[in-house]
């Protein structure tokens, strides 16, 4: 006997469960023929499924630089930006970064302020890297102590044949506790033809609740680039 309707209350909760619904009882044929469509599965249910039990990067804010900008900052608490305990780890990418001054250094700095904000947390940095010049390669290691602005890309060019990008992590920036925080940045710089500079930086940040991160240059401004802040979400 064919039934085209099921009366309200006709199927109780969990009446159709895994023991009655065989594997492949609902298969790709049903997904594609339209019998299960958006009327049966709400967007919110898909969103809920996607956001539960899945680890991944959550884009918090993307800043595309146009014109001359002296600094790019991600500061907790406004414009949907969180830089607090929402995520244990924050991931930052800088793509196609170009300075408006030739031979300039891009620097990162941090703050623990929530008002009268100043990016003046004194950090230390250790760097290991290489410079390739044609077929030769040389090590370029550095140490920097007690500086609020720590270089993460050195010798960036402003002309068309030079380019640079970076990515990095900030670990537990706002966790309570009495231990220092860490940030790590990997920088890639193409200087002239067949010459490039690659560096890995580890930055130790004081044991305070960090509320923001800023990028700026030694002497000039950004000519272009896109910097994105992500939160690394647990499952």
């Amino acid at each position: 006997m064919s039934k085209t309707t099921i009366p309200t209350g006709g199927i109780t909760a969990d009446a159709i469960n895994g023991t009655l619904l065989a594997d492949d009882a609902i298969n790709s044929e049903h997904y594609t023929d339209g019998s299960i469509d958006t009327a049966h599965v709400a967007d919110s249910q898909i969103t809920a499924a996607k956001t539960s039990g899945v680890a991944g990067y959550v884009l918090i804010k993307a800043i595309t630089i146009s014109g001359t900008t002296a600094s790019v900052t991600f500061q907790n608490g406004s414009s949907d930006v969180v830089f607090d305990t929402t995520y244990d780890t924050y991931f930052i990418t800088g793509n196609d970064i170009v300075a408006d001054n030739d031979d300039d250094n891009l620097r990162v700095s941090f703050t623990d302020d929530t008002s009268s904000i100043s990016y003046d947390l004194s950090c230390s940095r250790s760097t290991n890297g290489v410079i390739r010049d044609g077929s030769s390669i040389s090590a370029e290691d550095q140490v920097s102590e007690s500086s609020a602005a720590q270089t993460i890309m050195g010798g960036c060019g402003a002309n068309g044949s030079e380019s640079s990008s970076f990515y990095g992590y900030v670990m537990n920036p706002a966790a309570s506790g009495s231990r220092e925080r860490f940030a790590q940045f990997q920088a890639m710089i193409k200087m002239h033809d067949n010459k490039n500079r690659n560096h890995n930086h580890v930055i130790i940040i004081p044991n305070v609740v960090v509320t923001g991160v800023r990028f700026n240059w030694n002497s000039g401004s950004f000519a272009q680039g896109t910097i994105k802040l992500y939160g690394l979400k647990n499952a």
Partner: protein
Amino acid sequence: MPRYHNINGIMVQFTAEEETARDAEIKAWEDGKLARKQAEMRIIRDRYLAKTDYLALSDTATISDNMKNWRQSLRDLPANENTLEKVQAILATDENGKLTNSVWTIPS
């Protein structure tokens, strides 16, 4: 021309205090340019000396006067090239990034 921070995607003009601090920071950076360029020159100089170190080893005997003089001229670079203009001339490159000053030409 005023400077701007981009904070969370919003342009925020520097305060007067920030402008003053930034001007001082840039001046300090510019004042250190000669020292930075000299450091870069020393790194390159050391690389060129290293390329010919084998000629000066005691058990390999011969090194020409020409080579001795050239190596000494490299060692003298930091003392002799003591202005920004001079150091920039030493570090001049062509469009491919190759050093063009004759001081980098290894004697045959």
